[in-house]
């Protein structure tokens, strides 16, 4: 009896990594099946970034000031736009319930889904950003720091956003409600992420910002899977 | 007295702050009154429907659907 409860409460490492790997592989396979959709999301990022110079000015000083902020804000929006994909299809066809009822540990399963979300949205954005940063009069070092900050920051966006995506399952007003819940929580990531390049420009080291992003990522990695698993259970009640 | 209302030339700022707070407090208290009355009215209606028994069932069904 007590042995059974212990295994249920603390699943061993093998079953955790098996559950994580299963969910990751499944969601990646589904995402890659609709490559057009992924392409559209990246195009959204490119277009939003390219609109700002048209709305302000093509002068290099203006663009250099705006650059990091624009690239980061657009990354936030791109992440937000793709969040419903995380759970809603599985929720409406009942797969999510099956997953939650399975003996596999739910936090590990949702972690796999979040990892797949980051690999298909955050990572491409972080890879693409240095290319787009060229439009904003940024030099080599700045582009490197920008990419590093995005690589550390976009996983946090996926982890925090997944909590909001799970909480809004079955709620009215889907997308805009999700934005209201998630965007305020994104504020610190935006501040440190865009601040990394600003610090470099001000002649300081971007180290503190990158360390804080890394600390935030560790915190989110530890806490978010359990919060998301709880939110999924609440939604399935 | 008029000196008090003039607030040393800052009347607009001071009274816009305190005025907004006064309006907010009044609105919140009125909204609470309305909510309380509405809660009791709905509870009363639900119980009247239950007390009336099966004759009013269709109406109760209608309400739960809409």
């Amino acid at each position, binding site marked *: 009896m007590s042995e059974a409860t212990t295994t249920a409460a603390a699943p061993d490492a093998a079953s955790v990594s098996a559950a994580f790997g299963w969910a990751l592989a499944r969601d990646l396979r589904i995402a890659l099946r609709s490559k057009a959709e992924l392409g559209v999301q990246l195009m959204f990022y490119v277009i939003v970034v390219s609109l700002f110079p048209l709305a302000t000015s093509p002068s290099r000083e203006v663009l250099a000031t705006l650059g990091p902020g624009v690239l980061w804000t657009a990354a936030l929006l791109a992440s937000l736009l793709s969040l419903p994909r995380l759970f809603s299809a599985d929720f409406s066809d009942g797969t999510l319930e099956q997953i939650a009822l399975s003996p596999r540990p739910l936090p590990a399963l949702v972690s796999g889904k979040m990892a797949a979300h980051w690999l298909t949205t955050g990572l491409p954005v972080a890879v693409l950003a240095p290319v787009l940063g060229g439009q904003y009069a940024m030099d080599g070092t700045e582009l490197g720091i920008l990419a590093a900050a995005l690589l550390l920051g976009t996983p946090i966006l996926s982890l*925090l956003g997944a*909590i909001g995506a799970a*909480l*809004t399952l*079955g*709620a*009215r*007003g889907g997308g805009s*409600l999700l934005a*209201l*819940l998630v*965007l*305020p*929580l994104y*504020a*610190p990531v935006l*501040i*440190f992420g865009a*601040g990394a390049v*600003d*610090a470099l420009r*001000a002649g300081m080291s971007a180290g503190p910002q990158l360390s*804080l992003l890394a600390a*935030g990522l560790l915190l989110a990695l530890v*806490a978010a899977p359990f*919060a998301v698993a*709880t*939110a999924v259970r*609440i*939604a399935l*009640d | 007295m008029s000196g*008090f209302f003039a*607030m*040393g*030339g*800052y009347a*607009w*700022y*001071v009274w*816009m*702050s*305190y005025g*907004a*707070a006064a309006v*907010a*407090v009044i609105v*919140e*208290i009125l909204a*609470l009154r309305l*909510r*309380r009355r509405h*809660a*009791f009215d*709905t*509870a*009363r209606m*639900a*119980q009247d429907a239950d007390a009336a028994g099966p004759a009013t069932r269709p109406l109760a069904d209608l309400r739960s659907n809409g």
Partner: protein
Amino acid sequence: MIVNWFRYSSPVSFYPLAGRLSRAFGVLAAGFTIAGLYIGLVVAPTDATQGDAYRIIFLHVPTAWMAMLIYLAMAFWSALALGFNTRLSAMMAQALAPTGALMAALALWSGAFWGRPTWGTYWAWDARMTSTLILLFLYLGVIALRSAIDDPRRADRACALLSLVGAVNVPIIYFSVQWWNTLHQGSSISFTSAPKMAMTMVEGLLVMTAGVWSYCIAVTLARVRSIIVERERGSGWVASLIARQGAR
């Protein structure tokens, strides 16, 4: 003591207690606020540098404090609701959210009207103003999530989880905004440069804080009573409550 606690954790026995407390705190709120306004607007001397515009802080500071404190209280009740699945604590969290949002909104509004004569602009992206703005968004998110979920028990638990996630984030948000502010602002314009306060000013501030605090307690308890009636409308004790009310 412990027995008392559990006795009042059920809506039936909490309802009349909340009524008595709400009335008591309402009287306290009226008394403290009138006294505080008298001290703040009449007795306290005009400030040498800011003139009479500084009198706005007697409203601004208490509401800003309450906005933060109510979020903590909401997170506390949310933790209880999620951990022990208690109905009443979820109702308390639900009752706190609108008043917390109102306090944040009033703090921003009065801050803007204090900022205009003091800084020369209604909105200055001051660190505290910015974090209060984000706090307001967090409140609005909880309220919106509540109204978007039809099943009250599900809404209870979803909002509790969101409040807790927000509570973990609030210190990080405050820290990050502070960081951002010091990085981008050469001249420090913040409330720390507030005037050296005379004793009567401190008194006025404390009395107003007591008033606003009492008001928030009174309003929250009044709201939780309505929520209890809304939720428990099918139960027998609400029926007898209605019967008694009808006889009155």
